[in-house]
């Protein structure tokens, strides 16, 4: 179940808040953590939140009320179809199976809804056909 992707930035004092638990229990949304990182400056989470639109909005409002910086994630991988040779190197390195090799046309296909913008495919592409777009997290 794919929902909307968000980039969350925490201050160090918020790192211990059980926010995913609260989101699931109090706001009835399905939370899938795609990436998590904690440093001395705080933490970042990339999560997928699925559910009714109204519930997702309420969940995001709750996160913001806790002082968490929440941005919708628009980052995605951009494919240069002129460079791509359809070799399929990207297919097996993608952690969320966003790439698929079509067994009829033998073309590589990217499902943008699955992509979590982790970037693991970018340095795997020998044809230099992949890059992260520079939109970045939006407010």
């Amino acid at each position, binding site marked *: 179940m794919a929902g909307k992707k968000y980039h969350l930035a925490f201050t160090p004092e918020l790192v211990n808040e059980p926010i995913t638990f609260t989101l699931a229990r109090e706001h009835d949304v399905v939370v899938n953590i795609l990436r998590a990182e904690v440093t001395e400056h705080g933490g970042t989470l990339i999560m997928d939140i699925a559910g009714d639109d109204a519930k997702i909005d309420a969940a995001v409002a709750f996160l913001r009320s806790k002082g968490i910086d929440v941005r919708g994630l628009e980052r995605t991988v951009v494919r240069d179809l002129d460079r791509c040779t359809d*070799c*399929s*190197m990207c*297919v*097996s*390195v993608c952690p969320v199976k966003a790439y698929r090799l079509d067994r009829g046309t*033998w073309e590589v296909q990217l499902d943008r809804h699955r992509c979590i913008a982790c970037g693991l495919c970018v*340095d795997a592409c*020998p044809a*230099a056909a992949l890059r992260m777009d520079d939109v970045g997290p939006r407010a």
Partner: protein
Amino acid sequence: MRTYEEINSRIESGDAVVMTAEEVKAFAAEHGVEKVEREVDVVTTGTFGAMCSSGAFVNFGHSEPPIKMAKVWLNDVPSYAGLAAVDAYIGATELSESAPCGYGGAHVIEDLVGGKAVHLRASAAGTDCYPRKDIDTYISLRTVNQAYLYNPRNAYQNYAVATNSSDRVLYTYMGKLLPHNGNATFSSAGQLSPLLNDPQLLTIGMGTKIFLGGGIGYVSWEGTQYKTNVPVRNGLPVGAARTLAVMGDLRGMSPEYVRGLYFTGYGCSLGLGIGIPIPILNGEIAKAVSVTEDQIFAQVLDYSVQSRARKPIREVSYQELRSGTIDIGGKEVRTSSLSSYRKALKIAKELKEWIEKGQFDLVRPAGEFPAERSQKALEVLSCEEA
């Protein structure tokens, strides 16, 4: 039974029956190998993948006053100039001195084929007959004399499947290998691959005319590291075996089939398209081209073992590799092909079209390649031992 002459006269009259390697396998499955022998004249094969041992000779023409170039750079990529005066060899894997991550000799070759201007710098000691000591100019395929690929080792007859049992990511010429056997990569075009459709090289030898990079080329010699002493299954080697040295004019080639590649952590390679026509001279060849991917196997090697003597983990069929996952020690491991099956198929189809239109005839090899050859290793020896 049919001869080269009979096939060429049928090509000339537009009557030749030509099938791609994919088509002939389906035809054989439905009608049998005997019917392939009786009815098919030519089978076209194709492969498009990283072929590192590639490069191009370029003759720049003489400057005024003349120079005997000792050091040459093309778009800042060093090129070998230990040849007379204004000849140089640009190797595919040589890296740019100014932008080593992402650009190298293979990209220079792609740029030349694509009609782009390339920056030439050269220096020299200066001699009485070649007084000039440096030059800085631009060249393109319009300005140079000869410019041809001469690739010492291409079109490998099968190759390993790579995986990585270590706990860190490996960046290799077999691509990005995830830890704990997180993925597996392979490079052969499998059932479309030229040398897997004529495993004994009964029709492929010195002088064979081929599709090379979108243009016409020739097999010029046995490829380096050509070997025959590898394990065989269903009459086919399960590892890297025979190879070809090929050559062809850059003019007439297309960037669609001549591509600079860059493998992070390894370096540059040339993505190259090769297609070889196989004349169905007899039943043995008809049987060879009818082989399918469930019968073609490759060895899975652990690239975290940094040795030339890696022991295969298992053998796996191309049918299994092509399914998207293979089993390694009970784990379902996702696969990636490093060669493009789509482009390989396109090459086989394009070559078929050329032959059907009478634009491409078949050439009987002027020389055969060895039926037996083993590969030597490099040992550290004393002068007397060598």
